[in-house]
């Protein structure tokens, strides 16, 4: 799980159409880093926070990578934006001009024109030292696309889940603490929404809205909150009758303190575990939508899109379909495994009994 997130965060450094570093007549500049946008920086910030957490847990080796993220953020701030084409890669250079490209050397949306225009070359390109996994039908580097596609898909899944979580927790809290008519009405709404299969609901509503990544995230989030709300409500109802809640009340805790300090944290663990699984679910929905041609708009890669684009070529180049398929499988599996681990970690009794048993994973 962490590996996928970090790969996604470092995608611009691993695969970019612009050089990471370049020395020209005017001196050094860092085109790829200067081109980092807000989304890239957000990913790096996630890794940086994750790394800080790792440092706190004294996993120094693993923490070295996020330090790179901080470094990159600093460099980005210092570098001048500079739009330069990839001609630098193969084209004629000025004397003394040097360029350092990312390891993969190509961006996800960039065809390798040098090879595509060359006579006698058949697409997709086979794997070579230039394109490690070959290219797709338009001469775009497959590895670069997979890397960036994972990032887009992860982002959609996480953002949709965040929306679902926020809405669901709010509704769950309202229902679980206020009860009465509020509970009755909101739960009926939830039941009506749950009657529709999520994917079809999204497809139907999507037909009336502009197709963009943002609308897709919003839609996936707004159909996904029902499960969270039900779960949070159920947890709160269960907790309400627990003796420690009564004990806290007997100490004079106010209703607000009770809700925020005792009820919510205790309800949160199972909800967060479910949210992890729902990231995987939202990503699968994104794969399906993109595969149907509805999700992410064409030049942007997502795992679903790569799969869809590989389909017409499946007889000639089965790997173009196989690779994104395997990656989807791996990402979803890793999220589910993470959910399992989170469930263990958030159940103190359970982790204690595991420590007592020697702490080895089952």
């Amino acid at each position, binding site marked *: 799980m962490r590996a996928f997130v970090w790969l996604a965060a470092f995608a611009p450094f691993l695969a970019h159409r612009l050089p990471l570093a370049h020395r020209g007549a005017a001196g050094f500049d860092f085109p790829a880093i200067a081109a980092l946008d807000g989304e890239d920086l957000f990913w790096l910030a996630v890794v940086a926070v994750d790394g800080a957490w790792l440092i706190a847990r004294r996993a120094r080796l693993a923490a070295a990578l996020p330090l790179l993220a901080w470094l990159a953020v600093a460099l980005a701030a210092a570098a001048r934006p500079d739009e330069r084409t990839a001609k630098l890669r193969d084209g004629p250079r000025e004397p003394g001009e040097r360029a350092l490209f990312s390891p993969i050397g190509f961006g996800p949306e960039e065809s390798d024109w040098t090879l595509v225009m060359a006579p006698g070359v058949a697409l997709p390109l086979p794997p070579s030292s230039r394109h490690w996994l070959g290219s797709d039908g338009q001469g775009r580097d497959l590895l670069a696309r997979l890397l960036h596609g994972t990032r887009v898909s992860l982002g959609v899944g996480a953002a949709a889940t965040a929306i679902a979580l926020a809405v669901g927790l709010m509704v769950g809290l309202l229902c679980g603490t206020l009860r009465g008519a509020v509970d009755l009405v909101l739960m009926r709404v939830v039941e009506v929404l749950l009657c529709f299969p999520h994917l079809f609901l999204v497809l139907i509503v999507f037909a009336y809205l502009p197709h963009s990544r943002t609308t897709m995230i919003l839609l996936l989030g707004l159909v996904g909150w029902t499960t969270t709300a039900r779960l949070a409500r159920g947890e709160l109802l269960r907790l309400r009758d627990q003796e420690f809640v009564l004990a806290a009340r007997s100490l004079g805790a*106010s209703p607000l303190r009770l809700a925020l300090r005792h009820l919510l944290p205790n309800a949160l663990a199972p909800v967060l575990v479910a949210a992890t699984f729902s990231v995987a679910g939202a990503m699968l929905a994104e794969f399906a939508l993109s595969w149907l041609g509805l999700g992410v708009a064409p030049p942007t890669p997502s795992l679903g899109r790569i799969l869809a684009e590989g389909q017409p070529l499946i007889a000639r180049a089965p790997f173009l379909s196989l690779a994104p398929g395997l990656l989807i499988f791996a990402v979803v599996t890793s999220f589910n495994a993470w959910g399992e681990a989170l469930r263990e970690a958030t159940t103190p009794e359970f982790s204690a009994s595991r420590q007592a048993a020697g702490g080895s994973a089952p």
Partner: protein
Amino acid sequence: MSAPLLDVEGLRVEFAGEPGAVAAVDGVSFTIDEGQALGLVGESGCGKSATALALLRLLPAGGRIAGGRLRFRGVDLLELSNEEMRRRRGREIAMVFQEPAAALDPLFTIADQVGEALEVHEGASRREARKAAIALLERVGIPEAARRADSYPHELSGGMRQRVCIAMALACRPALLLADEPTTALDVTVQAQILELLAELRRELGMALLLISHDLALVGASCDDLAVMYAGRIVERGPAARLLERPAHPYTRGLLASRPRLDRALAAGERLAAIPGTVPDPRAWPPGCRFHPRCPIARESCRSEVPALAAVASSAVHVAACPYADEAAGAAR
């Protein structure tokens, strides 16, 4: 004589039920003086816990106080607003529960929980609350309290958890501590330690104690006064020593007789005495004296006449709700 700390008069607690409301506590009256310990004894389902929760106005859903007065330091608790009542909970009246494992929030360290009342009532900062919590944990006999303060409840034994619960309840030095079967979930050896701790803290803080239990003798040893409850009513009340020595109500005598004794072996073929039958259903309390279906000395009049608490052997402090208590006590001697 000054006014008692707590004066409960005709307390009636009802639970919503089918077909109508059920009175789990039906006209209970007692007083507790400053620093006094009252033991409230009875079988499960007789209304002991409902009485304690009513004192905090924390009855579970469906329960309500249907009548009576709860005067605490001269103020009727039933007339306070919710907010005024909340400010008294934990600071003036605190409670220790039966299941220490369930009464602690599993997500917070014990120092957090012990300090909570201080944060709520005295506006203590987290640091101050923590410091006070460690001192409290030390006081209730948690070894190496400073180190244990960051433990989670599941890392402690049952006895230690109950000590933590006691520390929680005592944080704001309440004038009255309600202890609902505080030792029932614990090992016998630990029970004695916890009762000893409660007695010690009571002396030290000058705090009054309402100790609820089903074990008459256990409570008798650590309380000044005893009140015996049966089917939602108090059937006998008096100084602990006297009540244990000369139980008057047939129910109290039955409770004492049904306890296995170490000082006297059972004769061959003799069986441990038991009160026949079971506690009646609150939805259908028997008419008259509620104990009459199980009473060995019941007469015809017991079926219809509700006995009032009356002095036993002309005592000013010992009362029982049985018109035949005196003669039964005489016969038993």
